[in-house]
């Protein structure tokens, strides 16, 4: 899991993805090793894209509604949103280039 990005919940999810700034959500859980693996990369991207893309994370154990709504069956899954709509997603501990490719789809 990424340490330096904001944690969001089912309650504030809609308002965050509906913002004018595109949003990348990192779905994770504390028992997931690969979620930990991807953390440093997500943190680095949050810094690099600050002001252009909002990067947040959601704990799927504490927030069952949102992962259910998007059919998430594996973590880490990162979903990119623009104006409240899902643009694309990646699953697994992918590398930085794949995440940049994902993020650029909203810019």
């Amino acid at each position, binding site marked *: 899991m990424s340490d330096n990005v904001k944690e969001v919940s089912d309650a504030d999810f809609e308002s965050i993805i509906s913002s004018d700034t595109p949003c990348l959500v990192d779905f994770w859980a504390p028992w997931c090793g690969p979620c930990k*693996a991807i953390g*440093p990369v997500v943190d680095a991207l949050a810094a690099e894209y600050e002001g252009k893309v909002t990067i947040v994370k959601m704990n799927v154990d504490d927030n069952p509604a949102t992962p259910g709504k998007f059919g998430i069956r*594996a973590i880490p899954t990162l979903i990119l949103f623009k104006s409240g709509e899902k643009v694309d997603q990646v*699953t697994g501990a992918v590398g930085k280039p794949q995440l940049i490719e994902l993020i650029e789809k909203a810019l």
Partner: protein
Amino acid sequence: MATSHHKLVILGAGPAGLTAGLYAARARMDHLLIEKGAEGGQILLTDWIDNYPGFPDGISGFDLAEKMSAQAKRFELNSIFANVLSMELKNKPMSLELEDGNTVTCDSLIICTGAHPRPLNIPGEKELVGKGVSYCATCDAPFYRNMHVAVVGGGNTAIQEASHLTKFADKVTVIHRRDELRATKVLQEKAFANPKVAFIWDTTATAVNGTDGVEGLELLNKNGDTSTLAVDGVFVLVGVLPNNEMLPLKDLEADAGGFIPTDQETRTVIPGVMAAGDIRSKEVRQVINAAGEGATAVLAAENYLTNLS
């Protein structure tokens, strides 16, 4: 862009790399360990490890990774997170090109890049990754509460994770291409005794069905009969492929599978370059021998560096 030099570089922080790091740090060698993702490697994908001595009740893969890392750091392990794109090993000093544009040079190198799960390469598999197709039971099992999932494979990982999946799924069907398992006996006994685990023998999966999520598997048995198995998820646990894309495979005389051959002391064909853990060309891929090879590799590196000076 910066260049830094170390007498020894260790590439990868799985059990082999973390053990090499522990030995190098305790020997006060000038060393650098480079990891691209998270310390622990493939043990992060394992829910429980019962065959690493010293933990009489077993230990989770995640906890073992943290303990190995903490132990190396107690002796001032020097490590960075970086992605190595390519390397030149025949010129001395050897050099590694990093994704951030920096260069690391070294007199000796221990390659511990490990391996990753092998896909089946069947229709529907790639499209449904994260939507029911998984290579990591410990990551994804909790999403299959009260569902029916398939496990493809018959080795230790497949059978261990089939049992783990029954903590969540109602039913786990193991699909294996042979009529007996390769997994170690105690794992087999546990799986055979579990009423939630069923077996389909002499059968391969030929396609994954579903559009927004996995709906089923197309099966082919050795008599040529085809069938469809309705499942909510598929866990593909059929061995590993080497993490070798950054390695000069020709110079290292990689085997047909892309793994790196070494002698008993983990020395590759290039002087000063060792390989340890799952990236080595070998029969047995266990945490315990990865750790052992990491230690052997540091001693080989020390010998090489002593003779060099």
